[in-house]
Structures are given as structure tokens and as C-alpha cells.
């Protein structure tokens, strides 16, 4: 997972390497007032500016306040391959947005290095911006301009000539089926449409890596599905994508590899399938008893063949079990045999959510 940064520098023309993103020992410590809200601001200065004291990031604050600052991202090593659809998961304050902020030149790392498409983002931020694009959950479209002009001027900022920028804007508007919206001002667009325009705009300068920070937050299920289709199609055409999301299903559906992050550290990094396998179970049986268990039922169920782990919580037992013939009847038998009254029994196939919760815990994050 770790990559020697010096080796990367040697093929830094960006076209020969196979890595889309390489983070080595990437660290961000916020000193003074930490940013207000990270979600939509790339971990950058919050809406009210950096100087205003505010609530620290929930998770990050726990991670390292003692050291005299907020250690939002702590010695992160990560490599994303070209063409990969990569997911970054974690609760609020885990350091996801700060990581994206550093990779997209908006947050300056305290330590370590980050290479995006062969460019050192810390040493050459402006050049790095030619190779990357970022889409946030908030609508940051230029409200003084029409949909078409949002795309057109974006191309102009990236050095495209008038006719080339116009041509690409037209082709993206067609590709994203925005033809009938091309002339309208962007503040009349619905959330889903605005998000499509933002992605189209991000693609106009053909970035090597596309960063999506919770792009489907706040969208209705239909729009979200539609956007998934768009993103999948994009990735199929070779686009490297780094996505952060709160929706486990989204990461499971779209990403080839997923990193789960908390308190500024990587907790796990693997394919969705392998991560799900990590729960140590093929399925989870939840047993609900009439009265809280004193440990007798837990012991009886744990002893069953095929049961890997049992978590006890008040009246509930969560049984992590492999495939075993007749498991459910045996569980029922064990429960009644231990003298307890069974209220309910449910079986859940393993989900990414189970992995996520197992790794990051269940405490509430603001």
C-alpha cells in the first residue's frame, strides 16, 4: 500500500505511471480553531472562514487534541490505480473530506506527500488542478451564468480556446442529457440536475482523477440511482474516480475498492466482497429474547457448530455464523434449551454496513 514517493517523482510526467493517486504519510493537523464543517468544503475553511472558533470535528477532535492540534488525517498511506473506482468511507470527522481537500489542493498537508496523476499537489497545486476535478455535495455552480456558460467558462479557465470550449460544452450537455436546460440559469435547477451539471463541468477539462465528495447527499432515491448509472458509465470509459459517501450501498454498488477511515486512520482497505468476508460471517442472525440474557443463552449459542461470534446487547443477541445446515432450528433449540423465551429471530445477509459498524463503532457522530 505504501509507495516510495521518490520513485513516483521519477516518472512524474504523469502519463506513464499507473497510479492515479498516491498518498504517503499524508498528515493534516489543524492548529488553532478547527474548521467548522467539513462535509461540503473540502475540509477547508468553513463557511464562516477559518478564523472563527467553532465546534471541532467530532471524530478528528478525539483523534489528537492532546498533541496541541486536531490531527484530522494521520500518516495516511494510500494508492489508487488509474481507472479505478475507489470509495472512501467513514463517519463524520473521520478525515475523509480533509483527505480530499489535501488531494485537491485546498488543504495544505502538515506532513507527507500526495501525488495525483503524477503531479505533486503540494509543490505544484496549480498544475495539479489541470489533472483533477472536484465535485462537492453543495451546488457551487456559477449562478450568474447559464448551464452552458458554466461549462464554457470552465473550459476557458482551463486554457481551452473559444471554439474548443464551446464544442466540449455542447458535447457534455448532450452526453448528460441537459439539452433543454442549456440556456437556463443554474439556480432554477433541481438538486439532481445541478449535480449532473456539476459533474459535466468537472469533466470538461478531462481530468485524470475525478473527486466526488458525497455527491448524492440529499438526493431522492430515483435521482441517486440515475447518478449511479452516470458514474458507472464514466468509470467504464476509463475515468479514475475517488468517491466519499455515507451510503454503504452506494459504495458497495460502485466501488472496486473501499477504504474505511476513522479518526484520521485507515481501518480497512479492500474490495467490497473481501470487506464483507471480514465480518467473519456469511450472515448475521439476530435473536430477540423476552428478557435480557445473563450470559447463559450467549454461551449456549456460541457453542453451536458454525457460529463464529456472538454479541450480546440487552435482550438481543447478534450471531455471526457461517453456512451451516439447520442453523436456525439449532439456534432456536439452544435458546429454549437455556431456559429463555424467544421473541423474534431475523437473518441478515452480511452487508458493508455491518463491516462499517464493526470497524467504526456505533457511537453517534454529529
Amino acid at each position: 500500500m505504501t509507495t516510495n514517493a521518490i520513485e513516483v517523482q521519477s516518472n512524474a510526467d504523469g502519463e506513464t505511471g499507473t497510479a492515479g493517486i498516491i498518498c504517503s504519510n499524508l498528515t493534516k493537523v489543524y492548529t488553532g480553531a478547527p474548521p467548522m464543517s467539513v462535509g461540503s468544503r473540502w475540509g477547508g475553511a468553513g463557511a464562516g472562514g477559518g478564523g472563527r472558533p467553532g465546534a471541532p470535528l467530532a471524530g478528528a477532535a478525539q483523534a489528537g487534541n492532546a498533541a496541541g492540534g486536531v490531527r484530522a488525517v494521520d500518516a495516511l498511506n494510500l494508492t489508487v490505480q488509474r481507472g479505478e473506482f475507489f470509495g472512501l468511507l467513514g463517519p463524520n470527522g473521520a478525515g475523509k473530506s480533509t483527505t480530499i481537500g489535501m488531494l485537491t489542493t485546498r488543504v495544505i498537508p502538515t506532513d507527507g506527500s500526495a501525488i495525483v496523476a503524477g503531479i505533486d499537489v503540494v509543490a505544484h497545486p496549480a498544475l495539479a488542478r489541470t489533472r483533477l476535478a472536484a465535485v462537492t455535495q453543495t451546488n457551487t455552480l456559477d449562478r450568474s451564468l447559464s448551464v452552458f456558460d458554466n461549462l464554457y467558462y470552465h473550459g476557458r479557465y482551463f486554457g481551452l480556446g473559444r471554439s474548443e470550449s464551446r464544442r466540449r460544452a455542447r458535447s457534455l450537455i448532450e452526453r448528460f442529457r441537459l439539452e433543454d436546460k442549456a440556456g437556463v440559469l443554474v439556480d432554477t435547477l433541481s438538486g439532481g440536475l445541478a449535480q449532473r451539471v456539476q459533474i459535466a463541468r468537472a469533466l470538461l477539462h478531462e481530468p485524470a482523477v475525478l473527486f466526488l465528495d458525497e455527491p448524492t447527499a440529499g438526493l431522492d432515491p430515483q435521482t441517486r440511482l440515475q447518478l449511479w448509472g452516470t458514474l458507472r458509465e464514466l468509470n467504464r470509459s476509463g475515468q479514475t474516480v475517488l468517491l466519499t459517501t455515507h451510503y454503504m450501498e452506494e459504495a458497495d454498488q460502485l466501488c472496486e475498492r473501499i477504504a474505511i477511515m476513522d479518526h484520521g486512520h485507515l481501518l480497512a482497505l479492500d474490495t467490497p466482497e473481501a470487506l464483507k468476508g471480514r465480518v467473519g460471517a456469511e450472515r448475521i442472525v439476530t435473536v430477540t429474547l423476552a428478557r435480557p440474557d445473563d450470559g447463559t443463552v450467549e454461551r449456549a449459542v456460541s457453542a453451536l457448530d458454525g457460529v463464529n461470534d456472538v454479541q450480546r446487547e440487552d435482550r438481543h443477541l447478534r450471531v455471526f455464523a457461517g453456512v451451516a445446515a439447520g442453523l436456525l432450528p439449532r439456534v432456536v433449540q439452544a435458546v429454549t434449551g437455556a431456559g429463555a423465551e424467544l421473541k423474534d429471530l431475523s437473518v441478515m445477509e452480511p452487508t458493508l454496513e455491518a463491516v462499517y459498524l464493526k470497524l467504526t463503532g456505533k457511537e453517534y457522530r454529529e
Partner: protein
Amino acid sequence: MMILEQAPLLFHQSTQRLSVRAQIQTASALVQRDLAVLFQGFFGFALRTAMQPALFAFVFAYVFPRIGQGIGGNGRGGGQFASVLMPGLMASTLMFQGITGVALPLVQEFSFSREIEDRVMAPVPVAVVALCKVISGAIQGVFAGLLVIPIVWIATGRAVQIDFGHPFILVSMVVLGALVGAALGLLVGTAVEPRQINLIFAILVLPLTLLGCVYYPWSTLHALRWLQIAVLFNPVVYMSEGLRAALAPQGGYLSLWAVYGLLLGALTLMLTLGIRGFRKRVIS
């Protein structure tokens, strides 16, 4: 990658650097965007710009002399007062334009709408994005400042005596004044929180205008020596006096050395602080 062939200017880098030409191209696109937005709403812009100087000149330099209200003092006629007033109104317009054309949009773009994001992610150093905001604000200021001349001329019933004998001073003062106004706008726009917007007018625009030698030449303040010295901290004073040197030199004005020197100094200071504030807002 395909883009390498399609956008040679930006991507043909022999080293890991963006060429100066590519950066200038990006910068000019940033300014073009602002000007396109300006011209889309040019009527509103012209109306906003013209109203204040037009009404001011009309009431004080046309109505007052005709209804016997004493303004301008020392028995000066309406025409003479109008000549003192016009450069002052131009100066206050240049400053006001910096606030309305740069500061207010910035406050909005940093907070509610975050529209600035796309421009901040343009492939130039963030300081260039801030500078482009000042340049387009200054271009807007030049339009606004020049618009004041015919407006005041008409509003005063053509009473104003304009002396176009110093074109160099006129042009340089309008441009420098517009830059100072826009740089002030950048500084204010990056320093002010959205909820403080209403305060800008009370604690900044009003004192800068009323104590900016807009309605009276600086020399006439000699009767109030402390005030005459206190107002020297106000950049609008130098804009007013410099424009007076260009358009109505007969009434006397501050030394041009002081005017140019202090305006350039103010510009440098405000740009430095404004760019620093801008960077703080977008990079952490």
C-alpha cells in the same frame, strides 16, 4: 491522454510548471467571465451607478442654488460648487463600486453560494484568482467613474465647468482610483462575515464618503485642523483631490506627489492584505 493534443498551451510543459502564457490565458478568462456578467446586467449596473451622483448633483448643485439654500459656502454659485462636487462624486463612485462590485459578490460567493469554488480550482495560483477579481472590479469602476461625468453634467443643468486640460491625470486617476476601490472591495469582501454586511455601509461607506473630501476640497478644512489631518487616513480623500486636479484644478488640490504616492501605497497594502485574506478563505 487526448487532452494533451487538444490543449497544448496548458499541458505542453517541459517541466512541472504551468507556462506564464497559460496562466495569463486563465486569468483573462476569469476577467472575461466577470465582464460578461457585468454586460448581461449592464442596465442595472448603470442605473445603480448613476442614481446617487445624479440625485446628489441635482439636489445640491441645481435645486439648492435655485431655492436659496446656502451650500458650497462663501457665496459660491451652483456652477462652482458643481465643479468641486463632480470629482468628489467620481471618487465616491469608484470606492462604492469596489464595495458593490467586488466586496458584496465575494461575501456571497464565499458563504451562501460558494460559487467561487470553480474559479478557485482554476489552474493558476489562488492569488491570481484574487487579482483577477480586483482587475474586473477596477474595469467596472472605470466605467462607473466615467459615467458620472455626463450624469452630473446633465443633473446640474449643464452648470458644471469641466476642464479636460489634464487628460493624463484624469485617466491615471480614474484607473488608480478604480484599482484602489476594487482592492478595498477585495479586502472587505474577504474580511466580512455575511451577517455583518449591513454594517459595511454604516461603518465604512458612509464615513469614507462623507469624510472623503467628496463635497468639499481638502484645503477648506484648514479651519478644522484636527479633521484636516484625520481625513488623511482616508484613501477617498486622495481620489477626490486627484480627480479635482484633473477636472477642476482652479479650486486648489493636494500635492499630486502625495496623491499618487499614497494611493499607490494604499493599493499595495490593500492588495497584500486582501490576497492574504482570500487565500485564508479558500485554502486551509
